[in-house]
């Protein structure tokens, strides 16, 4: 039999990255500050996790300005949506299988 944990995505091992993806999958785009507030994280912590997700091409970053302030928003990519769904399916299978 195949190892059930195999299908789980390594990138989503972190609760924070899992959280970011959960928020992105139901929102068209969301700003850094909104994410920070929802997940109750510090700037640096959140930024590093967002970086990992960006490098995996699971999310897109849009930089814009509101006045002089930067307003960075994030949205999920097709690849990210796919990976997240596959991860959830794997989780479900594991729970049902055990």
């Amino acid at each position, binding site marked *: 039999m195949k190892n059930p944990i195999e299908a789980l995505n390594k990138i989503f091992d972190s609760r924070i990255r*899992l*959280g970011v993806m*959960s928020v992105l999958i*139901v929102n068209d785009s*969301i700003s850094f500050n*909104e994410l920070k507030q929802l997940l109750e994280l510090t700037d640096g912590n959140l930024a590093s996790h967002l970086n990992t997700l960006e490098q995996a091409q699971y999310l897109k970053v849009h930089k814009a300005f509101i006045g002089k302030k930067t307003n960075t928003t994030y949205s999920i990519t097709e690849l990210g949506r796919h990976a997240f769904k596959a991860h*959830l399916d794997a989780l479900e299978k594991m729970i049902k299988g055990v």
Partner: protein
Amino acid sequence: MSKQEEQLNALNDIKKLMDRSSRFISLSGLSGVFAGVTALLGAYLAHVEINNYLSASGQYSAYPVDSSLLDLEFNLLKIGFGVLGVALAGGLLFTLRQSRKRNLPFWDRTTKNLLINLAIPLVSGGLFIIALLLVHPNTYGLIAPACLVFYGLALINASKYTYSDIRFLGLCEIVLGLIAMFYIGYGLYFWAIGFGILHIFYGMLMYFKYERAR
């Protein structure tokens, strides 16, 4: 913690975050009850006004033209806006309290989404009814059904951004509005059922479902 428990917790977190980031969940059932009671009170006042008008004018006429009709209209409008103001203020208060209790921000993207999507059919309905009042004489009978139908549409549209139960309430309002279209002249009763009784019933349902349990 076992592996399975850990994964279950992860799934729970995911669900919570999805809801919290896309739905406005501080809506209090008590604001529904309050709005319902206010609406019933308003409907009673309107009923008294109309009765006074009818007994003063002596007979019931389908096309009354005298100036006391204008007075009646004005009084009914006053009652309508009074009800709207009190109900909104109460709803705001209970919902603010609820969001504070849950330690959630009151004003965020979910609040904005909810209000915008509620407002689109609601404002269209409001303008539609104002047009009925201003340029189409003798269409008073359509006001109550139109209120109910547009309000129902607004609730259905907004239900994607708050508790999904609201969707069914919206359907009930639409059905009630359409039934009222067949019984023109009983608009006030349908109005009282739709905005009064349904609100009270639904508010209590949501209160027991989401607030008492926690």
